[in-house]
């Protein structure tokens, strides 16, 4: 997929663990893992909002568009 999810990069920057983020956002670790590995088909605005709030960042910091060559 041409959309790259950079949650793990932001997690590293904020020195936060996946478990902590999952708890703050209110999703399961399994779903966070789906998001991190790029298997997710879609992300709800509410989830994106919660992630941005928890990581104190903008949606652009988490999502990146990279055209497939």
């Amino acid at each position, binding site marked *: 997929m041409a959309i790259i999810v950079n949650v793990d990069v932001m997690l590293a920057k904020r020195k936060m663990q996946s478990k902590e983020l999952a708890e703050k956002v209110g999703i399961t670790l399994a779903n966070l893992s789906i998001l991190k590995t790029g298997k*997710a*088909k879609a*992300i709800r605005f509410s989830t994106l909002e919660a992630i941005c709030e928890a990581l104190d960042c903008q949606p652009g910091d988490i999502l990146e568009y990279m055209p497939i060559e």
Partner: protein
Amino acid sequence: MRFKGTVIRTSSWLLDVLIGLYAIGFLAMIVMLIVNGNAPNEFSLILPGKNYLSWIAQPEVVAGPGMEGVFGVTDVHPIGYRLGIEFKDNRFYILYIPTLIYALIYFYVMILLGRLVRSAKNDDFFNYKNVSRLRIIGLIILSTQVFNWLSTFIKGWFFDNYLVSTDITHTKSIAIALPNLFSSPVVIGLLILIISEAFAHGLKLKQEQDLTI
């Protein structure tokens, strides 16, 4: 929910009983055919009445008392003829092959239905295995109609080439009577195929929903 549970439990039980009975019958047939060697060498050839006509020994049927002015019986002829054909040599074994194939296919469909019901019982109905099971069942049901047409053709060919009758005439009718919509294998097969496609689409939607975080 309670109704659903009852339906699934009953269907599952009935299918298990049917599969069991069918397996016993099938094994008995195989044993009779191979081990015992006493397989019956007499076969029935059923000629449908719409294609075969005979004017011999027609039963007389007239309108009942008081009904003579209301209606009259214009034509009486049987809707089919059953010919018992006894084979004098061992070639009759060939005729068991289509029966065996048909029995195996029937058994396979029963097993597929059993698995479908079992997956519903385990609340795991929406998976790709069920989609392919439904597709296979639909295609098999459609193919039974093709086999039916084929068998009608073979019967006609056998009658024309290997039997002689001065009393029964093969009219070679191509008239197809309108079948009962809900008992025609074509309609049922197509319906099942459409359901399987709807199923596949539903499954895709479910997966997308599951992968929405």
